[in-house]
């Protein structure tokens, strides 16, 4: 029964056109960025940076390098928006449309309904991240050669991740980074899902979750909160970048993962508790 219900939730989610907006936006933005990489001054700048560090530039301006570079703006701007758009819809849209009342006239418990909805959202978030990574790699490969990977990512706070990797190693770390990105996406979804469980419009749930994220970014960037930055969610969202660091800070990544899993559980419990207590009316 549980799998039938999960299948139903997936059919509802993937039957909606708006679910695919994120995929379409990624497709478009990736190709625009690729055009910019191919025909702008970016390649010369990267070559200079590599050669000043003693590396042969032609070996590292590759599909993998470009794919990682393309990920950054998409993860910062597009991914939260599309994941939270779906997360905010999961419960609030059904409540607004009235279909939730019809479902809850059936003998399914509210907790079970919420769990299947949340799991559907998690599956969506994971598929979105995997598609994002696969599309980035595929389109980058269409324009650039398959060679070693070069990583140069400055992080707020003065730290910079710099590394050069072989193509095989780079691909392995690229895949691992996507596992962590999927956890980030799930956390963003859980936040929006939590607000969605309250009596509010779907757009309000999405906006509240996005505001929470922006607040975290702003607080993390203020010197006053320097000692508290580990309490900022966005601080832990950055763990995927550290996969490419040399040596890889495993303890820091594990800590961030634990925090994110904790946030997921907390958001679900808060949402489920409120949803259980509220009255579902037309």
């Amino acid at each position: 029964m549980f799998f039938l219900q999960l299948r139903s939730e997936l059919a509802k989610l993937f039957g909606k056109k708006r679910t695919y907006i994120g995929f379409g936006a990624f497709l478009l933005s990736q190709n625009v960025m690729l055009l910019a990489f191919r025909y702008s001054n970016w390649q010369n700048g990267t070559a200079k940076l590599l050669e000043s560090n003693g590396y042969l530039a032609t070996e590292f301006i590759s599909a993998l390098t470009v794919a990682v570079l393309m990920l950054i703006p998409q993860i910062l701007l597009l991914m939260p928006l599309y994941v939270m758009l779906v997360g905010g819809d999961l419960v609030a849209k059904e409540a607004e449309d009235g279909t939730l009342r019809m479902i809850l006239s059936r003998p399914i418990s509210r907790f079970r309904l919420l769990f299947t909805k949340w799991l559907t959202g998690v599956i969506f978030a994971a598929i979105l991240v995997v598609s994002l990574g696969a599309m980035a790699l595929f389109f980058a490969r269409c324009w650039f050669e398959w060679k070693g990977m070069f990583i140069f990512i400055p992080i707020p706070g003065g730290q910079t991740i710099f590394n050069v990797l072989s193509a095989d190693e780079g691909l392995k770390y690229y895949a691992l980074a996507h596992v962590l990105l999927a956890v980030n996406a799930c956390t963003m979804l859980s936040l929006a899902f939590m607000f969605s469980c309250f009596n509010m419009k779907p757009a309000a749930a999405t906006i509240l979750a996005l505001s929470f994220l922006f607040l975290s970014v702003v607080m993390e960037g203020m010197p006053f909160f320097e000692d508290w930055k580990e309490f900022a969610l966005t601080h832990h969202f950055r763990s995927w970048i550290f996969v490419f660091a040399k040596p890889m800070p495993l303890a820091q990544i594990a800590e961030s993962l634990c925090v994110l899993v904790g946030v997921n559980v907390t958001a679900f419990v808060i949402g489920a508790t409120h949803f259980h207590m509220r009255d579902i009316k037309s």
Partner: protein
Amino acid sequence: MIQLRGVSKQFGTRWAVRDLDLAVPRGEIFGLLGHNGAGKSTTIGMMLGQVWPTTGELRICTHDITRHRAQALHRVGAIFETPVFYDYLSGWKNLQILSHYTAPTPPERIAKIVDWVGLTGREHDKVSKYSHGMRTRLALAQALLPDPELLILDEPSDGLDPEGIHEMRLTIQRLQKELGLTILLSSHLLNEVEQLCTRIAVLNQGKKVFEGTLADAKQTKQWVRLKVGDFARAAASLLADQLITDTRDGSLVALADGVKTDALVRRLVALDIPVFEVAPEEETLESFYLTLMHDSRAEGRKLKAES
């Protein structure tokens, strides 16, 4: 099938339902009447475990809905005033999805229900292409999927054209006759309730102001149409003599218990009031309902004034 004992629901400081007792026996078509905001939908919400009661006990199919929701709703179907579905999916897919929240339903069962409600041939069309009538039929189909014993219909004829209303009435009658279902029908359409229901309950401002058979409702007061020279004077005298208990519409009087029309005529003649016509007025559900509402409003005003 449905039993409510001392059920109340408070939203903030407002009582939506207050101290409601209700019993719907198996096999009946039970009408729940009341104006907008009377508490009908809140009561139905509580019956389906969607609204938590503030106090009281609700039993559906012998199970306590707040404690054993799954067992209570296992063989219950419900339709709400505006049938809403996943418009971007087909009618068939909607039925499949909704059936999964109760129990796995074989395609043969879905096909049988689709045929029963008369949607065969259109079941694979997207719901966005359905007319209001077809949506109502689909709503009925989803309610029938779990092979219900009890059907809760909240304003099922809302938004339907006269032909649709007629069709819905026939369907409800068929459901009771052919499938032996117990039906709770909440409706504004008094004519529909009059034609369908065997028992009714009337809610006003969250309180039950009447419960009984339709015959009881019609016999609560014996109304007589009275055409006289001076109706106001005649009514005042008859009320003072306790020959009548109520007046309505400037020409109707309700006879007191045991009083016959001849006593009225004799008294009016004695008062020298010319009498042109005395005829019994058949009580309709509408007139009963309007009188009930008028009486309970007057009582409410009286209590307010006293307090």
